[in-house]
């Protein structure tokens, strides 16, 4: 089934997600730290940073993408954060191959993973696991972004939506793009988004396997 309502996508542009300035400055700091002793890693982080910014700028023109493409952006983001946090950041992907071709508004998962890093992993002194899992639930897709950090102290959705984590913007864009039955729910250790399953063009996703990087 293809997604029917393309006009709505224009509205999505006005809700475009923004890049977090903390992330930019911290990434630049990581790069300066790597240049001298780990020049190849510095190169890699710079490339990922450039790709991620391009992805973010382009999302206005192409607000609806494939889950696989969004996960590629999440990977770029995590590569940069792994350089910064080292072994403190453990990431697992549990994504069934066939779900890589379902449609999702761009910059839906990346900010959720960024929240898991900022409010989860970076608040823990030791190693912290973050996991991203997708599953089919009837006619819907569910994607969970979870972390082993302190978790939500208060799960009141209305309050969290006003608290500046960008969750409200994410749910708005999700509902606009995928229909009003779409929802973002707060869990103890993360969030889950649920939205109707629409398949996109297979060709747009590389045959990247999203798997847990070796430690």
């Amino acid at each position, binding site marked *: 089934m293809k997604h029917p309502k393309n006009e709505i996508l224009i509205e999505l542009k006005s809700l475009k997600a923004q890049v977090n300035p*903390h992330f930019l*400055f*911290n990434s630049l*700091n990581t790069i300066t730290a*790597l240049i001298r002793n780990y020049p190849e890693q510095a190169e890699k982080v710079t490339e990922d940073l450039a790709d991620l910014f391009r992805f973010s700028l382009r999302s206005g023109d192409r607000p609806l993408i494939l889950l696989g493409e969004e996960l590629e952006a999440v990977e770029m983001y995590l590569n940069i954060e792994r350089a910064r946090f080292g072994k403190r950041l453990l990431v697992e992907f549990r994504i069934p191959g066939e779900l890589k071709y379902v449609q999702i508004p761009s910059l839906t998962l990346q900010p959720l993973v960024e929240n898991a890093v900022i409010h989860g992993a*970076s608040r823990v*002194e030791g190693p912290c696991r973050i996991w991203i899992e997708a599953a089919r639930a009837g006619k819907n897709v569910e994607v969970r972004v979870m972390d082993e950090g302190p978790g939500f102290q208060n799960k009141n959705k209305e*309050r969290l939506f006003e608290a500046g984590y960008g969750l409200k913007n994410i749910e708005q864009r999700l509902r606009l793009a995928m229909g009003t039955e779409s929802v973002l729910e707060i869990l103890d250790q993360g969030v889950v988004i649920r939205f109707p399953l629409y398949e996109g063009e297979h060709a747009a996703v590389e045959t990247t396997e999203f798997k847990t990087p070796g430690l």
Partner: protein
Amino acid sequence: MTLKCILVDDEEPARRRFRDLLKKSDVPVKIAGDFGMAKNAVAGINELKPDVVFLDINMPVLDGFDVVDLLTKPRPHIVFVTAYDEFALKAFEVHALDYLTKPVKLNRLQQTLKRITASTYREEADDRLDQAVRAARPLTRILLKKGTKYIVMEANNIHYFEANDKLLYAFSDTKRYRVEQTTMEALEQRLDPGNFIRIHRSVIINAAAIQALEPWFNYRWRVVLKNGEKLPVAKRRVRELKEHLGMV
């Protein structure tokens, strides 16, 4: 004179980079230690008694401000280091406290080191540090009085503060509480400017409590709160309020 330094940052690459910079500095320094965990840093600083501590602000469990609170006096020179923290930086500037932004530049670091080498009057700097830390850390809990009892409330649960005839009140839902021993000005300074905004000489409002902004008589505006209460906005504060709410 060689300055004895300690670095505190939870990110390993950030510490490594800072070490490299200090080694390149033309001001003589000795790195007495670096710490990735704030609680170890507190013990280390109290024990090693360095001249200067380069202290990251955003760290897990204890942040840079908590570290300062836990140090025994006399404390070393504290130089805060942060990637981007608009609110804290404003507070440091108001209190003339030196700080560094990441990525740190060698020139800028050397200026700081020279300033520390030249400074002699330590007590004044110590007071400034306390004031700056107090101002840089937003109030998240507020002590309120209801009848004869004091209660602690999360600042975010307060809809607005109102000054009335030299007394200060906090309003949450339909309840009114006394706020003692502070002023509108002090509150405005210490509440998180991301959430609270002054809309009137006598009113500071929690942006999350605002439902609407509507024109009132005589080209004036007022805010409507989610619970239906209405509060006038001073003419000269309308623009700031609109900016805060993303309308300009």
